């Protein structure tokens, strides 16, 4: 097992009677991308600020890259941070900005110059290094911010809403960078975001927060598994095969097939009473139905168990916690 590089143990932050973060515990290993999810006000930003030593915890402890929470300077030396809504000095150039931060980490002028050129190229801003930040687009600023977070070759990178306000192409670029930071640099990335499909793509672990508490944590599969409604599914087939698919599925006792309103190529399959179907479990009944459809030579365009997306799990977990 890879080394644990981020570990929060019963981390708590109170502001008077308000619990911004309440007894939060999770851990992440080297090279892992951890998705920190939650609705607005869930405590994601506060958790990141606690782990990056910007705020002090009310109680609990944490360690970053082997350094305990009391060793703030050592922790800051080995982390990279892109804060939420980070500001940029508009009169500086991108290169100047990176050189300044590189020098704050103890690099010489020569090292800083060379590193800034390298990082600007890595985030696709090599043509813009001599331009003032005031003319950068939001996406360029976010990429510059990520480059700044990498000036010290960090062991752990914290990115708070890095894709906020970016167009799909900008989001894809940022996610590319995040993936390669974890892969090529073997850094742990803690990613706070609202983009759940992207989290599914890049994160190996998910921590869902709500009202300051951890609602669920684990791998993406584990979190989805908790929310899965495994006795219903959607099946999409070409329109001219819909009737054949329905016939194939109707041979299975206990399965109810309905057409989804407004979508003639989409069927909703439900196990009427879990356990009543011929298969041992609803999931096996579904599998058997799907096998029958494919055996009949019907191309399957989409088959998805209800609640099988991270967004379903997210909504279920956060609404359950509120209830």
């Amino acid at each position, binding site marked *: 097992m890879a080394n644990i590089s981020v570990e929060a143990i019963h981390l708590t932050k109170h*502001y008077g009677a308000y619990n*911004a973060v309440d007894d939060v515990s999770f851990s992440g290993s080297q090279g892992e991308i951890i998705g920190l999810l939650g609705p607005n*006000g869930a*405590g*994601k*930003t*506060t958790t990141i*600020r606690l782990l*990056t030593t*910007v*705020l002090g915890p009310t109680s609990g402890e944490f360690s970053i890259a082997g350094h305990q929470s009391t060793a703030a*300077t*050592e922790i*800051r*030396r*080995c*982390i990279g*941070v892109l*804060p*939420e*809504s*980070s*500001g940029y*000095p508009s*009169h*500086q150039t991108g290169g*100047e900005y990176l050189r*300044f*931060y*590189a*020098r*704050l*980490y*103890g*690099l*010489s*002028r020569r*090292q*800083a110059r*060379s*590193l800034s050129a*390298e*990082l600007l190229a*890595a*985030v*696709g801003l090599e043509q813009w290094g001599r331009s003032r930040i005031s003319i950068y687009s939001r996406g360029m600023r976010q*990429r510059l911010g990520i480059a700044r977070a*990498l000036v*010290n*070759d960090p*062991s752990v990178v914290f990115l*708070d809403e890095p894709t906020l306000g970016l167009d799909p192409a900008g989001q894809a*670029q940022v996610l*590319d*960078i995040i993936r*390669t*930071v974890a892969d*090529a*640099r073997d850094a742990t990335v803690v990613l*706070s975001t609202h983009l759940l499909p992207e989290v599914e793509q890049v994160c190996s672990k998910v921590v869902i927060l709500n009202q300051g508490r951890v609602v669920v944590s684990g791998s993406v599969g584990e979190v989805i598994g908790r929310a899965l409604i495994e006795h219903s599914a959607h099946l999409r087939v070409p329109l001219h095969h819909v009737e054949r698919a329905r016939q194939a599925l109707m041979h299975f006792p206990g399965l109810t097939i309905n057409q989804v309103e407004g979508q003639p190529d989409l069927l909703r399959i439900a196990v009427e009473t879990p356990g009543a179907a011929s298969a041992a479990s609803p999931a096996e009944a579904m599998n058997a139905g799907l096998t029958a459809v494919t055996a009949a030579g019907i191309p399957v365009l989409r088959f998805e168990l209800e609640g099988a997306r991270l967004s379903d799990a997210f909504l279920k977990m956060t609404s359950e916690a509120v209830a």
Partner: protein
Amino acid sequence: MTLQVAPPAVGTRQDVQAGEGQPGWLVVAQQECRDLWTSGRGLILLFLFSVLLSAVTYLTSTNQALNFLEQRESVNLVLQFAVAVGVLATLVVGADGISGERERGTLETLLVTPVARRSIIVGKLIAALTLWFATFGVSIPYLWVLGREVGILGPALVLGFGVGTLLAVGLGSIGLLISAACNSNKTSIAASIFLLLILFAPTQLPSGLPQGWFFEVLLRANPVASGLAYISALLVEGHAWTQDLSYLITPLLTAIIAGSALIFAGPQLVRLTRGVNAG
């Protein structure tokens, strides 16, 4: 476009640990100076100051020609103006130091670097002081024009530099402390300017007013008024350097107390306050 962040050739974890670069306070001071002077803020202030100083010098020279103002008093007036504006500029730049970073959303990225908060504050104070030094530098030719014939140019320069630097350190530190304690940049700058107006008010009282013990206490308790009174006593009244040294106690104490408070208590004040983008 697919972007790849490869392992770095320079700036590796070993390079960061080795820390061959300059100390953090110096890096911050250099960058702050660059920001102050290349962004145009410092140069604009300096230009406006030189325009005002030209006007003041012209008026005092004209009066002098009409024998309304003695030449020593002209030097004193221009020097006091230079000290006042230099200190004001230092205070205002200091007042923007922390609250401005908070407002622009750039403070958090500074706070997550390994540079001590004390070093950040010291670097910012040094940058703010450069404005005082530049202001003083600009006033030298004007003082030379007015003071060369009466032989007080040397003492005027030494006095102005010494007293002005004490006041700039003290008030620049106070400006940074106010800035660290304020969430809003507007509040910080308004409070600092208000403070400066209070400190300068006694220097604007008509000289014919009765000056009892209460006035003397007010004068000596006020670092700006007592510092300027010391300059006047030497340049206009021709007192010896040591005769009125007691006037320098308040400017000196202000510089020491405010500077120490900044260095020792400042790091606790340089923080993100509750509610700033709280997640």
